[in-house]
């Protein structure tokens, strides 16, 4: 197995006043070069913590990480900060959720975009400027020259996210993490940004990990999807397979709660009752059991292991939909 990025049994715990909080509990995931993987889950399912700790951005005395994250033959979890910094931007990059806060308000777009090119790639200011214009064209800016002179507050949310994307791909990373890249954007702009990310992925031949709570976002733009719940991957399958042959009741419930136009208007929108479990205390059984409509006694007593259904489809359930 020579995946570009290989995550094995990653556990991330935080020391809190109420005791250890396990945000990620044994996630394994392989990301091949050039492929696009979606990570879907509710708020608090550990998807952001997972992506940030994979990159190595989460560090400190109160964070405990076990398992292994291997990028290109390098173990990232134990790598020192200096070597990690060498990888950030040029090998692994990240796009963040809110484009309103990820740009420095007091600096012009051009100076912020140039920063990475000059400091990381060692370009001269003129070359960096040229590259900025190319990048802005790449993300479909109508007037790149003009945009370079603007301050972030003079751009709309969608425009700012494009700038962020342009900055993230500026140093041609091999893996791009997109942490809820469209959550803060208008629905109309969401589709544009997702298409843009898809185009860039193909053009620059990078692997992409889209983290989102919206199955609809990843449905048309990923090769594989991992569904996370309470810090675990509960179902993992190629996108088509996941939608055609859903095994895990949680995934089914997520799909049902996507609003649909063809549903009868009088009917209430289906929701998943309850809340995700408290990450400081874990039940011995399946984490989803308390909210699962198919749950049986076994689900509450035993923790289900990840099972292989063939076709690269993995699920974590004793009583999968459609049988084993």
């Amino acid at each position, binding site marked *: 197995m020579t995946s570009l990025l290989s995550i094995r049994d990653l556990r991330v715990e935080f020391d809190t006043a109420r005791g250890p909080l396990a945000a990620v509990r044994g996630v394994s995931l392989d990301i091949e070069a050039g492929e696009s993987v979606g990570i879907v889950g509710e708020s608090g399912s550990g998807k952001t913590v997972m992506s940030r700790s994979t*990159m190595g*951005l989460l560090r400190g005395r109160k964070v405990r990480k076990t398992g292994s994250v291997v990028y290109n033959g390098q173990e990232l979890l134990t790598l020192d900060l200096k070597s990690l*910094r*060498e*990888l*950030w*931007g*040029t090998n692994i*990059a*990240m796009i*963040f*959720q*809110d484009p*309103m*806060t*990820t*740009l*420095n*308000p*007091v*600096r012009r777009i051009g100076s912020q975009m140039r*920063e*990475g090119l000059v*400091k*990381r790639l060692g370009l001269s200011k003129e070359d960096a400027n040229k590259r900025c214009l190319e990048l802005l064209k790449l993300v479909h800016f109508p007037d790149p020259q003009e945009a370079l002179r603007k301050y972030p*507050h003079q751009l709309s949310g969608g425009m700012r996210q494009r700038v*962020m994307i342009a*900055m*993230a791909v500026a*140093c041609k990373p091999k893996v791009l993490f997109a942490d809820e890249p469209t959550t803060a954007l208008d629905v109309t702009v969401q589709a544009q940004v997702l298409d843009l990310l898809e185009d860039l992925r193909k053009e620059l031949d990078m692997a992409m990990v889209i983290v989102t709570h919206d199955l609809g976002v990843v449905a048309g733009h990923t090769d594989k999807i991992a569904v996370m719940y309470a810090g675990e991957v509960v179902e993992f399958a190629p996108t088509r397979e996941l939608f055609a042959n859903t095994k895990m009741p949680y995934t089914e419930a997520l799909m049902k709660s996507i609003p649909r136009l063809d549903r009868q208007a009088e009917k209430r929108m289906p929701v998943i009752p309850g809340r995700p479990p408290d990450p400081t205390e874990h039940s011995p059984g399946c984490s989803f059991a308390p909210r699962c409509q198919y749950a049986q006694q076994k689900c509450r007593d035993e923790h289900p292991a990840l099972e292989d259904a063939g076709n690269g489809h993995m699920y974590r359930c004793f009583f999968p939909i459609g049988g084993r």
Partner: protein
Amino acid sequence: MAVKRKPIGFYLASGWMGLCVLMSTVGGFLPLPNWKVGDYDNLGVGLFSPGHLLGTDTSGIDQLSAVINGTRLSLTISFTAAILGILIGGFLGILAAYSRGWLDSVILMYFNVSLSVPTIILALALVSIFASSDSMGQTSALERIGTLILTLAIVLIPILGRIARASALSWTGRDFVLAAKAMGMKPLQIMWNHILPNVVPTLLSIGFLAAGVLIVVEGGLAILGAGVLDGSTWGAMLATNRQLLTIYPHTTLIPAAAIAMTVLSLNYFADYIRNIIDGRESRL
């Protein structure tokens, strides 16, 4: 940013400060009586006396000439001290916010300890240590001024430092810092390129406020005998003439008015900068 009509206060404040700058640069060339030499024919004359527009004090010193001359040192002392305070305090504050470890604790402890010492006492102590009269009863004026600037800066550093630290801390948690980090930027680059530009406007705003306060403090120190000795600052003029407030009120009111107008103008600038910052924050 849209071009807005600036409020009238902005022009008044700019006007006065502009006048101050003029007075302190070319004021010495005006055809006015020497501010050091008394006119013994006109001791303590009131406002609008012939030859003395703002009158004279009991030594016959022309008050207009003296107040114009006082501008230079008053502003130099307060602005130099304020700039020193901004530079050193800002550096220490940002360093503390950035290191977040034992260095942060040490710097913070220094701030807290120096804040607990009363300003006036500290100033009096420093002046009496560094710039007391020598055996001949003489003190070099330059020594006094230097000590005064140093004292005021020392008082200012912990205040500005704490503000810089708090401001820097509030920015280090922002997403764009995380984004820069994820781009592989080094901590020093992040501090310099991302935190500093956001802290500077806050420090500048407080710095103007501080410069105003320092002019008042300098006046207070002068009255206590720890200021500049001869009447070459506004504070020193106050100190020289304060006993005669009831008999010759104009001799104290003129420097007091100059101080008041300068402080008001500086406060106005501080507010003005604050407003620009607030406006920008709200657009985030």
